[in-house]
């Protein structure tokens, strides 16, 4: 089975081919490139599963395939594949979602008579290809490069409807904000390369391993170039720099502002961006180089707090939104906050677990929302909906499954993963890193809000009476919409059983499959989860603490708290929005609502930074440039010409003046040289 690794590059290459095909020949193809994309992503999915199986059977792969730059250079820049449990699992998730999104697009785009489809499918193909390549990158540089390509594709797709004013602006914002983060990332990449001479993720020669040897007081390793800093300080700086890219892509506070705007793109694209590609790329990167972050307690704390804060912060905004996709957007930000929280608190497995479940249920919710939007003739306002559940059965059921998962209601997938995230935060907070408890508290508070806004969304959309004409007679959807919804709906319900930690703890059954899987793989790669927990323990001082009587009590208390809060939120929403004609309760919030609707004025200050400050500054620079610098240049020219004009007035035209000037200058000359030569 190891032979499958030889074909692994095709996982990314296939969608790339579909990109080329759709770009060049999409116009002439029956479904304008959709088929090429579907076939390619299906191929990728198949290969990814094969790789997953192979990895599951204990084979891994970490090879350099292409030398980007070699020769007489201090360090080579290469491309290669790292196929270990983490990337193999992620490949399956990405290709699965991509495949379903392609299928769904048939219904959402083709059936709706959109133009520019070849461009759409080409971008989608490239998007998938870039993300897949990013996932199996074996070094930070390659990861960065595909990370950027992911950014490009999201730009293209968010701005797909370029004829309107909104999408291009949203696309620009998405790219710019993430670019701002990527700036730090790139500095980090350059720093890592110049510090360690390598950017490999895995193995003894990977930079996390090198960093560990440097930091390890017991080894006397060759010192790396830390540019005059203490190694620990310098590594923390590098870690934070790379984290900049993560926060940008994963829409963490304060870089989250691009994501709600990105809803301007077609809904399937939103599904792809939020569930499996762009936003996921950020947190995946942290997981990918967790061996490095695990060495840096400060950075871990930053990650945890950013995550916890973002989770809570985004959830508050989700509460008041009126458009279905807006609610989902803020929920995405919030959920990625949880993943960051997990990573920051040492919950490597929990993070990936939540990444997986979130990928499924968020893709489901977006596709479901897409289905609703088709039905509503592209009206996204929930206050114009209502009562849709009777018209669209499949969509409703699937959407409900996703919503319950999002809200973290037992036994849907979100419950298991979110619970594990919070559990990790709690035990490590208790175990000697009390700071983490603050992050935990924020995460916990967000659970309540999540429950509330999710159920509010479901009720407003599907329940009650139809509040508009379109809602009374919605547009039907076809199999190509229903099929992905069905697949994902089932997955959203059951995928939590990949790693039901409470069951394991309570019953002692070895049902934590994901944990076992991520813990497998050869030691030499240094990417197993127990290696990471060893590192967090040794270098970040993370250890497990409990309340009351031990692990089980802690677990149950934590799970109970989160489930209880989720139910409380859900129940509150149910109580408020249950009726046939729900009222706009959020208006009662008054000033708070205004604040929330304006997203805490985050956009305003960022727009001010971009337009008010930077543009004004550049205007001033331009004035300075034209006035002073170019003014000097033109001034020199004017002065020269003016003095030339004065100088030629010497030539008066009167010959006696000439004679006088000649005699005078001769006399001056004589006088000067007489003085110099000492004639007298």
């Amino acid at each position, binding site marked *: 089975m190891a032979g499958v690794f030889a074909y692994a590059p095709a996982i990314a290459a296939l969608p790339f081919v579909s990109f080329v095909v759709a770009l060049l020949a999409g116009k002439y193809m029956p479904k304008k490139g959709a088929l090429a994309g579907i076939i390619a992503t299906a191929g990728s999915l198949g290969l990814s599963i094969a790789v997953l199986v192979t990895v599951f059977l204990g084979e891994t792969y970490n090879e350099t395939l292409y030398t980007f730059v070699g020769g007489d250079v201090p360090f080579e820049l290469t491309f290669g594949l790292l196929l270990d449990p983490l990337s193999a699992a992620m490949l399956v998730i990405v290709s699965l979602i991509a495949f379903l999104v392609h299928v769904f697009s048939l219904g959402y785009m083709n059936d709706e008579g959109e133009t520019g489809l070849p461009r759409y499918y080409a971008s989608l193909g490239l998007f998938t290809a870039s993300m897949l390549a990013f996932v199996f990158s074996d070094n930070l540089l390659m990861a960065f490069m595909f990370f950027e390509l992911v950014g490009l594709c999201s730009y293209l797709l968010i701005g797909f409807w370029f004829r309107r004013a909104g999408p291009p602006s949203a696309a620009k914002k998405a790219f710019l904000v993430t670019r701002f983060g990527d700036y730090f990332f790139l500095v980090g990449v350059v720093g890592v390369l110049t510090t360690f001479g390598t950017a490999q993720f895995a193995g003894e020669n990977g930079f996390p391993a090198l960093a560990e040897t440097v930091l390890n007081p017991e080894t006397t390793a060759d010192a790396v170039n830390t540019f005059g800093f203490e190694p620990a300080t310098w590594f923390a700086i590098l870690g934070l720099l790379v984290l900049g890219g993560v926060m940008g892509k994963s829409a963490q506070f304060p870089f989250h502002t691009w994501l709600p705007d990105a809803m301007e793109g077609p809904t399937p694209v939103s599904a792809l961006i939020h569930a499996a590609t762009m936003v996921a790329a950020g947190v995946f990167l942290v997981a990918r180089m967790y061996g490095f972050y695990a060495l840096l307690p400060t950075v871990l704390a930053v990650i945890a707090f950013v995550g916890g804060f973002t989770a809570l912060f985004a959830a508050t905004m989700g509460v008041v939104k009126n458009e279905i996709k807006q609610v989902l957007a803020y929920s995405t930000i919030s959920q990625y906050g949880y993943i960051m929280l997990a990573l920051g608190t040492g919950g490597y497995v929990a993070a990936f677990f939540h990444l997986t479940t979130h990928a499924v249920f968020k893709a489901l919710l977006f596709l479901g929302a897409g289905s609703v939007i088709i039905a509503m003739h592209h009206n996204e306002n929930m206050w114009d909906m209502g009562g849709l559940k009777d018209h669209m059965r499949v969509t409703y059921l699937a959407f409900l499954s996703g919503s319950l998962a999002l809200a973290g209601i037992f036994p849907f997938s979100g419950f298991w993963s979110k619970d594990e995230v919070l559990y990790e935060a709690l035990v490590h907070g208790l175990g000697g890193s009390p700071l983490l408890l603050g992050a935990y508290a924020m995460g916990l508070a967000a659970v309540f809000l999540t429950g509330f806004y999710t159920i509010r969304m479901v009720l407003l959309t599907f329940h009650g009476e139809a509040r508009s004409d379109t809602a009374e007679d919605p547009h039907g959807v076809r199999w190509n919409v229903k099929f992905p919804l069905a697949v994902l709906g089932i997955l959203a319900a059951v995928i939590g059983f990949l790693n039901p930690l409470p069951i394991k703890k309570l019953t002692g059954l070895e049902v934590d499959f994901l944990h076992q899987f991520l813990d497998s793989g050869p030691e030499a790669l240094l990417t197993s989860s127990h290696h990471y927990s060893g590192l967090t323990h040794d270098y970040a001082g993370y250890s497990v603490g409990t309340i009351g009587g031990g692990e089980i009590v802690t677990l149950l208390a934590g799970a109970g708290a989160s489930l209880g809060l989720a139910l409380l939120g859900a129940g509150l929403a149910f109580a408020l929005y249950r009726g046939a004609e729900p009222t706009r309760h959020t208006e009662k919030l008054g000033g708070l609502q205004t604040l929330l609707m304006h997203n805490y004025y985050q956009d305003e200050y960022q727009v001010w930074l971009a337009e008010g400050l930077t543009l004004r500054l550049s205007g001033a620079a331009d004035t300075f440039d034209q006035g002073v610098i170019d003014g000097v240049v033109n001034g020199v*020219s004017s002065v*020269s*010409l003016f*003095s*030339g*004009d004065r*100088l*030629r007035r*010497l*030539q008066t*035209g009167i*010959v006696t003046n*000439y*004679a006088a*000037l*000649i005699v005078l*200058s*001769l006399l001056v*000359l*004589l006088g000067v*040289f*007489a003085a*110099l*030569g*000492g*004639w*007298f």
Partner: protein
Amino acid sequence: MEHVSNWLLLAPAGAFVVSAMLLFVIDSFDPESKHDTLLAAVTTAGAAVAMVISAALLLSGTADSGVELFGGQLVVDGMSLVFTFIFGSVTALVGLASADYIEDLPHKAEYYLLILLAATGMSLMASANSLAVVFVALELASLPSYALVAYLKTNRGSVEAALKYFLVGALSSSILAYGISLIYAATGSLLLPDVAAAAGEASELYTGVFGIGILMVLGGFAFKTASVPFHFWAPEAYEGAPAPVSAFLSSASKAAGFVVAFRVFVVAFPIDSVAGSVDWVLAFQVLAVLTMTLGNFAAATQENVKRMLAYSSIGHAGYVLIALAALTGLGDQGLVLGSGMLHLLVYGFMNTGAFLFVALAEYWNVGRTFRDYNGLGKEAPVACVAMTVFMFSLAGLPVGGGFLSKYFLIVGSVGAGVWWLGAVLAVNSALSLFYYSRVVKAMWIDEPDEPREIERYPTALYVAIVAAAVVTVALLPGILVFDSAAFDAAAALL
């Protein structure tokens, strides 16, 4: 020394004299000659012969060590041959071009005659080895020039120009004569080597007299080379004179002034001996800076093309003055002196060509200002390409030999440790690019104010212009023909 073959060395000057005499003869037999072409042909041929002989003598190395004639009154060496070559080429071009320019004017024979006599005077200047010969030759070159400027005697500009030229010239030659007399007073000799021999003593004993003499002689030469402050005649004379005469004066006459200055100052006033009396290198440095700057700055704002060329000619005099101003005794002195000669050589072609283009424009009556030249490129592309070559070469762009020779001067000044002279040249050169390119802009870029029709394309004038352009371009790589000769000549002189 008095060997027959040595007389051959005077053949270039002889060629001028003989053709002048021939013109006399022709004119006496046929006073109102209808044979315009014959007169022009004789002039051109005579000058061409002079040019070819000088080149042959120069490149064959016959006179490398310098041959003295007439008891040392004349000397023929590399430098004199370089300059007779310049005079020959300029005279040939001017003679050729004049065939068309003066075709409707009377007194053609006199016109050519005066040109040839002036050329004769110049070639004597190149060989003058005594202050007496210097003065006589200089007057021989100057007097016909005054008359030539006044050639358009019903044209107020021409007459006024001649008057000013003459008056300033007369004043300057008086100053020169007085300077020579003072030098004679201090050294007791007029032969340059003898003056040099006595210079050390003279500058100790008769410091003041000798010093004043040197500076006055310098003034006389400054007049001939159109250097500040004796330049006042130049803009007017060049503007008012018939354009071929302006070409002749600004190229050949200026070169003649320089060859005399080179020889007299280098040979007769060795800087080591006379420095106690007057540091003429310093004087030339001052003059060079003033001349370059004044010439170029005044040229920058002219509206009249011919007057712009006149001022630019002053600017170029300033460049060449660096050849004397950089004789600081540091580094390779032959380099900078030779560069001066090379620049004058190239200048002979490019500047003559430029004035001849102005002659062509006058011939067409298109007007005198830049504005009048607008759009000429469409109607007379060949001549305008040639003019573009002249302008850019004068400005020091690599379309012609002017590029290399100008940069050689900078090289020389840097090598002599007076890099700041090079820097001043640089600033001026950049400014010159501005005003030279105005001509180019007018010809190629600007649209004419009103439609104009050019009816005739004068052959001889065209041939002269194109020949000048071809040689200018060819001198870019082809300066190798003359470079070692010039540098050797300079080295021999030093």
